[in-house]
């Protein structure tokens, strides 16, 4: 059933809160990545406040959907979304990257319940999502004999894998893309943050990726492309993926790196650095006033 405008607004409001928290935690940490987390705040708000079947009070709930974050460097967006969803106190976000914190610079599963896995070294998340998705399909169709899993199969738990576009450079990604296509893992949805930047520059200069759509289709995937800042469009794509029983789905979400802060939008230099305290104040003002469109008393 389509979401009401009020429901969409609620998710958009969470995305803004997540962006604010990202700026605050990066300023406090003094290191970390800014562009990717800001660019994916709408997607993570949609995931944690609508899409995922999960329970912040019981992160190990057996019936939960699994969200694997493959490009671990954008984890501030996940930490912020988890905190706002109630997994842990929002204040804990300010411990990001500090000694003794559960919020490691790159996510470590054994340290914080709800992370699902450890990531940072790129290109490995989809493989893990594949193993999970295959397991869930196996469990859904026991007892069974003969080779492999039968698809399509009714399965209640889904696996989401969030990837960056830069990490599509990794060979391991394509090994995993091939394997998911072979096994028709229809309970798996990959989401690519197509923001066109990576550390050294624009993706198409460093290592051209287009056409990502044609590449995934060639590996027997269902491909959807959306505006990654349009919450309704993203949720519609997720719903469509649920209805595809023949193959895995990838949602190529076109996003603006640094979204919400005009000074840094589209600028790849902000891939891997945090704002200073002074910049942080300005960035928060930008986010809270919708880039100055709202009166400053909102800042």
């Amino acid at each position, binding site marked *: 059933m389509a979401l009401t405008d009020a429901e969409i607004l609620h998710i958009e409001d969470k995305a803004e809160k997540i962006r604010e928290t990202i700026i605050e935690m990066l300023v406090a940490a003094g290191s970390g990545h800014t562009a990717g987390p800001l660019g994916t705040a709408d997607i993570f708000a949609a995931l944690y406040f609508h899409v995922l079947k999960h329970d912040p009070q019981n992160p190990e709930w057996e019936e939960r959907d*699994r969200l*694997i974050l493959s490009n671990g460097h954008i984890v501030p967006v996940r930490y912020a979304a988890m905190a706002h969803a109630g997994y842990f106190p929002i204040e804990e976000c300010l411990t990001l990257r500090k000694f003794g914190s559960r919020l490691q610079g790159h996510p*470590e*599963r*054994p340290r914080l319940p709800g992370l*699902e*896995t*450890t*990531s*940072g*070294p790129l*290109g*490995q*998340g989809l*493989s*893990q*999502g*594949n*193993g*999970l*998705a*295959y*397991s*869930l399909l*196996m*469990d859904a169709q026991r007892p*069974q*004999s*003969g*080779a*492999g*899993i039968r698809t399509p199969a009714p399965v209640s738990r889904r696996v989401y894998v969030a990837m960056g576009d830069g990490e599509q450079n990794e*060979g*391991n990604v394509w*090994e*995993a893309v*091939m*394997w998911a296509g*072979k096994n028709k893992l229809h309970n798996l949805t990959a989401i690519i943050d197509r923001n066109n930047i990576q550390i050294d520059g624009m993706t198409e200069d460093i290592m051209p990726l287009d056409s990502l759509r044609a590449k995934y289709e060639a590996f027997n995937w269902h491909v959807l492309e959306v505006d990654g800042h349009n919450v309704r469009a993203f949720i519609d794509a997720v719903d469509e993926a649920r209805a595809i029983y023949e193959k895995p789905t990838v949602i190529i979400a076109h996003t603006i790196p640094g979204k919400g802060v005009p000074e840094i939008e589209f600028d790849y230099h902000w891939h891997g650095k945090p704002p200073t305290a002074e910049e942080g104040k300005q960035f928060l003002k930008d986010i809270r006033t919708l880039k100055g469109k709202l009166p400053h008393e909102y800042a």
Partner: protein
Amino acid sequence: MLNPHAKLVQNIFDAKLEQKPTRDGFGTGTIEAGKSNENVLVLCADLAESTRAEWFQKEFPERFIEMGIAEQNMAATAAGFALAGKVPFMASYAAFSPGRNYEQIRTTIALNNLHVVVCGMHAGVSVGPDGATHQMLEDIGLMRMLPGMTVIAPSDAEEARKAVVAASKMSTPVYIRFGRSPVPSYTTPETPFEIGKALVLWDSELAEGVEGIQIPQKAKVAIMTTGSMSHQALVAARALAAEGIGTIVLSVPTIKPLDTEAVVSVARRTSHVVTIEEHTVMGGFGSAVAECLSEQYPVKIVRLGTQDVFGQSGTPDELMQHYGLSAVHIGEAVREILNHTQHKKN
């Protein structure tokens, strides 16, 4: 001299002693583990026949996972299976796994602390004609450096079977090393095996004799061995006994965690140690023993293994001889270490 508690085969020095590759123990062990635990899976990277993954595949086709020639994907996918509560054994040649996929093993298996059993086949120079590219001599070192990783190198097919079954019952990451060429089947189902425990195979101070050898003899040198070299160590011990040189042979299938208690207690009795492994002497089993003894009970140590070189093509026997991996070489090392000490005293 043979430790009766080790319950080894009767005809242990018979030239016609049955020989099997340790990889056979992977085949039988995974079937046994699969029968008692329906979560056990075997993942394989297009090497089902030679890794013996095929044996499991025939028994449990629905739990055999074909990964194609993609070892990096195999490691991270195994992690995903483990995240879902499965018990994946992942098999390929050690040169590729952990050789190629070390970082996937490090991040997704070891740092995640997941119960994945990495099975490195065709380890060592005894792979034979395939040559250096396929003769993995660095895997023990690579894997034992990973925090939380258990590392096992079984010495015959029966011990390999036991290691596989025991690994299936753990809850943390494990690496098991297997070989391609047949080695003497010298242990029995009754031979004790426990992960983390070493076993004395031969002790020249024990009363029970071996034909033609005077007993007991003072044990002067400990021969510590892992994996494919254990039977050769016994052959060397018997030859040395005939010359009147008493030894203790300590088999150490689990390299990590090392049974430091057994290593120290044997070194304490002999004051001389020779280690042998079908692996480079850098970072492997001999290094583990040297690290332990240098801190806890410093004694003279000679480490046999490959000496900072790659392998090459040849028959397994030619290669084992060329790289100094035989009973004869162990005997020479034992005599040498004793002479060296003798010279120093003079």
